């Protein structure tokens, strides 16, 4: 982190906690919205580990998000305690990601995007007609068993539980990107051939990153199951893979917190639009297209962009990188 980075981190933490205290007073609707925001923050950040840090263009992360959601939904039926169910969700999603990563490690680039996309669809169509997973209707009434001091059937308790899980997972992801492994990933992103001739086994690192990101997506999916209490096949559909990518781009790839910012904005925007009309896709598309064309480095690059537009002195190079 740069100088002053620590103060920013403290200020951010204070703001998040203040907001977390305030939200339950705004009613159940707002609580559900902000739970979703927190979950999408984690999902988008996990996807950005692949896109921004490792340049692994996966278009199939919904598979792991959905796998996590279904794991929790199924285990909740046998009254598993939440932490155990979430751990299982992470394990299932990570294992699935590991296998997918191995299968797809022979292809790169655009082909990789298409292949991961299609593999996600295998799972989607499979679940769509699987009786065990509830078919088209999915599984409803997902709830943690009501017991213990920290009774998660209480909406406020669940809110804090979700926030805590997301915070821990975000710290873990920050840990990963700033670890030696994270540096190796960015090195591979910059020049895979050079990395290979430093003795870095590029394919293995890609599979590892894919597994970690898949596990984190699985956790996000598991939390989603508790938050909405219903898991339908739509969580596995490919548009669910596109959504965190959209958030990452809107917020700013190549930075750690950019995708989180994008997740907040997009989730909130979808909520507001959803309140106003059922035919909201047009507006989402226009916003996304505007970012793709005008602000491809995302919200985090806007200050820099404005400075450049103001025309004053020479712009300070690229968007601020939080690459550790």
């Amino acid at each position, binding site marked *: 982190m740069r100088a002053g980075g620590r103060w920013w981190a403290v200020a951010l933490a204070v703001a998040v906690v203040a907001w977390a205290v305030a939200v339950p007073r705004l009613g159940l609707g707002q609580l559900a919205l902000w739970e979703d925001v927190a979950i999408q923050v984690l999902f988008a950040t996990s996807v950005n580990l692949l896109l921004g840090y490792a340049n692994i263009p996966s278009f199939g992360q919904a598979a792991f998000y959905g796998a996590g959601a279904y794991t929790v939904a199924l285990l909740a039926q046998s009254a598993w305690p939440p932490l155990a169910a979430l751990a299982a969700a992470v394990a299932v999603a990570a294992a699935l990601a590991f296998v997918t990563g191995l299968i797809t490690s022979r292809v790169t680039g655009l082909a990789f995007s298409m292949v991961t996309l299609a593999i996600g669809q295998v799972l989607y169509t499979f679940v769509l007609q699987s009786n065990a997973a509830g078919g088209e209707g999915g599984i409803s009434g997902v709830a943690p068993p009501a017991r213990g001091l920290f009774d998660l059937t209480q909406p406020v308790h669940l809110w804090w539980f979700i926030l805590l899980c997301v915070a821990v997972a975000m710290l873990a992801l920050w*840990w*990963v990107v*700033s*670890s*030696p*492994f*994270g*540096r*190796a990933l*960015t*090195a591979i992103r*910059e*020049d895979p*051939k*050079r*990395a*290979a*001739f*430093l*003795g*870095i*086994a590029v394919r293995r*690192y890609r599979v*590892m990153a894919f597994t*970690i990101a898949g596990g984190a997506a699985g956790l996000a999916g598991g939390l989603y199951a508790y938050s909405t209490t219903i898991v339908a096949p739509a969580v596995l559909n490919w548009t669910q893979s596109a959504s965190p990518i959209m958030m990452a781009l809107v917020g700013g790839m190549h930075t750690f917190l950019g995708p989180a910012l994008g997740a907040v904005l997009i989730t909130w925007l979808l909520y507001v639009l959803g309140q106003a009309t059922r035919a909201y896709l047009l507006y989402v598309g226009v916003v996304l297209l505007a970012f793709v064309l005008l602000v491809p480095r995302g919200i985090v690059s806007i200050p820099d962009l404005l400075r450049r537009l103001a025309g004053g002195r020479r712009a300070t190079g690229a968007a601020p*990188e939080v*690459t550790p």
Partner: protein
Amino acid sequence: MSLALRLEGVTKRYGAHVVLDDVTLDVEPGTLHAIIGPNGAGKSTLFGVVSGEHTVARGRVLLGGRDVTRVPAATRVGMGVARAFQVARVFPDLTVADNVLVAVLASHRLTQVFWRRRVPERTEREARRALERMQLTALADRPARSLSQGDRKRLEIGMALALDARLLLLDEPTAGMSPEETAATTRLIREVWRETGVTVLLTEHDMQVVFDLAQRLTVLHRGRVLCTDVPERVRERPDVAEVYLGVSAQHA
């Protein structure tokens, strides 16, 4: 810390075109060995074969006596083969310091560590020393893409050395450099070689650099080895003058 290299009857083809034709070559451990030859002689391909980038149609590649013909590139790096490319390849968006650090981490097989944030102090120290040795400390916090071509080459050599190289492959280390940079780089290579005792195999167009540095020379012509000898004697050979020195007279 040095590694012997031996090529035995190595043949490499691209389609019908034979790039390396029955090349046999011995590089003694700890020597500074140069490969020269006109453009298209097969020098870069030879480097690719030694580093494991290219497979060969026939023949064997031996490192320190071990047959590595079918051993992948990453494993050869682990055996001490480090490579610098003709056009320097560094990680453009990482800082100079991080470029070197990644190399040091890779050499200690620490790049898989994702559960710990801190880089071990020993590794940090080693990276700082590598920066100092390459006189890059002043540039440590600059992104690598902002460096001049000469500084980039220096950085790349520094990264190669940070791998605990036992065989250093330098593909035209002074290409694209100013005369001052060339002189500095030549000095640097000689120093590094003296200090570490690494085996150095280099290709070079600049004959001044070659005769300044190399203990032994191999002349490659159309994929075949014309001769391998000490520089003085290579210089006197009429066939070499004909195929190579004649051609490059305009360069000198």
